């Protein structure tokens, strides 16, 4: 199903993107959980579920015909969805509700507590893995919704979540650099364009969406560079790499923008 690109089908690409995005978000999760000293055993959960997702997504991409790989991808996808949802609850409870002041200090804990939406990124990659598994099995729709429409909806929702989390953290950083408005520019417009194309595809919506997704893809790399620069601005810069990796801006978070844009581009060009 779909148009292959350099030898791989669209759903093989989506499985690879799910694996790559999971790897990057686990790297940031490790920094956050290591910083807090892995105080709870449940803080290891994303690395187990995410690790299984990476392995199974890579396996499904390399042997797309294998039924066992597809089954493993579906199982790992569901596990990641559950782990992410439970993580969201933990971040909310331990990172806000249980903290001194609780909801009365809502803005403070949104900014300085555990990142509230971060665990849902694992849920999102789990959902992406499920869509990839269905696509690899030759299914053209899910619950009566065409997979192409489902993917555009997925990109819109996941991008909106990433923008919201980035917006909160950049607000905490007082938007001290104009580039910090980046996630609120092209990616935000891409959310609306995705929804527009999913609901009412047309000859106008598609090129607009393509341009916005390419800009979002580049925004991800600009973010990676600027976050690296942000680490370099801390005392000692990268010479104190471990400390500044833990205390600086999340190193790999902007790559999610590039990854989600890539999913959108695969959808509009290959499906």
């Amino acid at each position: 199903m779909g148009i292959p690109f350099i030898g791989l089908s669209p759903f093989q690409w989506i499985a690879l993107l799910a694996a790559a995005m999971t790897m990057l978000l686990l790297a940031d999760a490790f920094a956050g959980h290591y910083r807090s000293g892995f105080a709870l055993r449940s803080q290891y959960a994303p690395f187990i579920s995410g690790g299984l997702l990476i392995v199974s997504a890579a396996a499904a991409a390399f042997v797309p015909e294998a039924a066992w790989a597809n089954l493993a991808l579906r199982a790992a996808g569901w596990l990641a969805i559950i782990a992410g949802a439970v993580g969201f609850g933990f971040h909310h409870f331990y990172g806000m509700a249980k903290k001194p002041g609780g909801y009365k200090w809502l803005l403070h804990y949104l900014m300085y507590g555990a990142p509230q939406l971060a665990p849902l990124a694992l849920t999102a990659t789990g959902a992406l893995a499920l869509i990839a598994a269905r696509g690899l099995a030759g299914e053209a729709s899910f619950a009566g919704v065409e997979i192409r429409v489902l993917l555009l909806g997925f990109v819109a929702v996941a991008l909106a979540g990433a923008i919201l989390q980035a917006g909160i953290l950049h607000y905490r950083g007082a938007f001290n650099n104009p580039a910090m408005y980046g996630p609120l520019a092209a990616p935000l417009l891409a959310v609306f364009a995705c929804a527009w194309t999913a609901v009412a595809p047309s000859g106008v919506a598609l090129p607009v969406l393509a341009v916005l997704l390419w800009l979002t893809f580049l925004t991800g790399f600009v973010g990676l560079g600027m976050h690296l620069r942000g680490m370099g601005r801390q005392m000692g810069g990268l010479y104190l790499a471990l400390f500044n990796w833990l205390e600086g801006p999340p190193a790999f978070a902007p790559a999610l923008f590039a990854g989600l844009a890539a999913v959108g581009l695969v959808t509009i060009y290959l499906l």
Partner: protein
Amino acid sequence: MERPTERGGTVTGVRGALGLFKMGAPTHPIFVHFTIALTASSMIFDTLGFLFNKASLTAAGGWTLVGSALMTLATLSTGLTSSTRAPVEEGEARSFLRAHMALGLIFYGLLAAVTLWRLALWQGGAGVTWLYLATMAAVSLVMTVQGYLGGELVYRYGVEVEQAYRELPEREAESAPPEPASSSPRLSPAEKRGGGS
């Protein structure tokens, strides 16, 4: 501070030469040249292939771009390794270093995008276009700026060469605090230590 680079006299034999091998030498400057050469070659091959309608030149342009996208991963990772080994105190040199680090990843994003575009053109059996060549020129311009920043880091500030930049205090605890680079004439390392010539 003794410099570790000069440990003896003229090297006259293989054994002496092997004894001077230093596996901890920075590898970033090696990989940088692959990125620059492959990207620039790709643009030149594609331009010539487009102007003279030569399929072999266009093919060479495609392969060199793919080579660049792959080799630049090594350039990036060795660059990160190098920056973790540079004990640069806040000042001009670190400003250059930060700009170089940020632009490196931005350049890679552009390179990845243009490589995907090139692969799509190749798969569709289409040749390169003026728009593609103009984009490649813009990407090459970013690469040039990036190379300039890297060159300044090495040849003006001596990062990973001889520590001409202001170092973090822990590296030269016995020396006097260095002067800011922008407000005083540059001193040789011997003068910094108060040793005159």
